[in-house]
């Protein structure tokens, strides 16, 4: 019995290590569809597993996806022209809280997951440094188009996600518009405070 549980644990550790090993690598252009498919499958299988607590699932999911999401570019996109006016310290604190907001919002959506399937449709290179990955989420009632937008990072030529579009709605665009409207009447510190209350 004890032996069994040890071997089970070792198995778990091996699985975890192999997941980490895959994710430590950056995504290559030719592998985008394949890698994303495996990440998505991993996630949906994890979500279906009823033996794991939801909290543990989310930590594991972020381990899977953190290496492909470009949170710092997302922060810059969300603030638009305001970004350049900020000090390095302000940029840092915004990036931290906005990343948390994005993750929480994502977890919130995962919580709604029931038995949807995700299908990768195609990869389209729209520019030298832009790739779109088209996927379909087969929902309960309808099929939703979800597009992951990748850009080639200048730092190390990795392909990273800077925006996700669901049924034509760009997540980054909605944040950008919201922040712009908010900042037209209020200060940057107000925005940070507001985000803080929103992430509690």
């Amino acid at each position: 019995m004890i032996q069994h549980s040890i071997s089970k644990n070792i198995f778990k550790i091996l699985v975890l290590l192999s997941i980490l090993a895959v994710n430590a690598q950056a995504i290559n252009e030719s592998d985008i569809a394949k890698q994303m498919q495996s990440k998505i499958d991993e996630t949906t299988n994890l979500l279906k597993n009823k033996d794991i607590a939801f909290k543990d699932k989310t930590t594991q999911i972020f381990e899977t996806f953190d290496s492909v999401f470009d949170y710092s570019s997302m922060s810059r996109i969300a603030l638009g022209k305001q970004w350049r006016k900020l000090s390095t310290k302000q940029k840092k604190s915004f990036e931290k809280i906005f990343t948390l907001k994005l993750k929480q919002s994502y977890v919130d959506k995962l919580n709604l997951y029931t038995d949807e399937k995700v299908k990768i449709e195609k990869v389209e290179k729209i520019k030298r440094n832009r790739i779109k990955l088209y996927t379909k989420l087969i929902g309960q009632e309808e099929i939703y188009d979800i597009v992951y937008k990748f850009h080639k990072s200048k730092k190390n030529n990795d392909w990273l996600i800077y925006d996700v579009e669901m049924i034509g709605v760009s997540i980054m665009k909605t944040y950008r518009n919201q922040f712009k409207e908010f900042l037209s009447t209020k200060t940057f510190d107000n925005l940070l405070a507001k985000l803080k209350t929103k992430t509690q």
Partner: protein
Amino acid sequence: MKLFLFFIFITTVLFGSTPSNNQHVKNINQKNLIQDDFDDEFDDEFIDETDETTIYDPLIKYNRAMTQFNDFVFIYILNPTAKGYSYVVPKALRKGISNAFHNIAFPIRFVNNVLQLKFQNAGEETSRFLINSTFGVFGLFDAAYYTFKLDEHNEDFGQTLGFYGVKSGPHIVLPFLGPSNLRDAFSLVPDNMLTLVYNSNLTYEESLYLNTFYYVNKTSLHLGEYESIKKDAIDFYPFIRDLYEQKRIKEIEE
């Protein structure tokens, strides 16, 4: 086709907008030329028609109030009803009912596909309707999708008008129905005339019940989504207005 649409979009942004908008675009371009050498590679991509400066919203006060009213209706009436209903009625049946409602709305999709000259889609919609009404047992099952991989092609009159270049007009939040705009709200009338309910001899009260049932059933399949979206918002009204307008632009493009 995509390139063509993109071209139209660029021309409308650059030349078709009002003088003040035009000025706005010019200002941005000039600013970019001056300050931004190679810094913001994302700017071009995110400055566009759904920018809040260009969403036309003269009714903002009314819209905000109506959004609050709808929110109240949803939170205190529709959502609890749908929750209770979802306990009683199994999911498979609720899905079936939703499929059946979708199936009988076939004339709307057919006519609007034809109006937009999407004849192949209109044909596929017809096949879907025939297959689902027979093999799919009065539309309860989406047999056409599962056996013949026939996808839906949702089109409504608002999309048809958009296809022919009609602009959205001011954003309007409709009581109970939520975000819309002048073009789409007006389009509900012709679309409604194509529904079976309108053409049957149901009394006003009966069709009201049927509509309510439709929304309760629909909500029961989307529990928790509204609350989740609400949490994403810094300011709820402009947020869902933006969601709606972005979604419509995409639907018309397709």
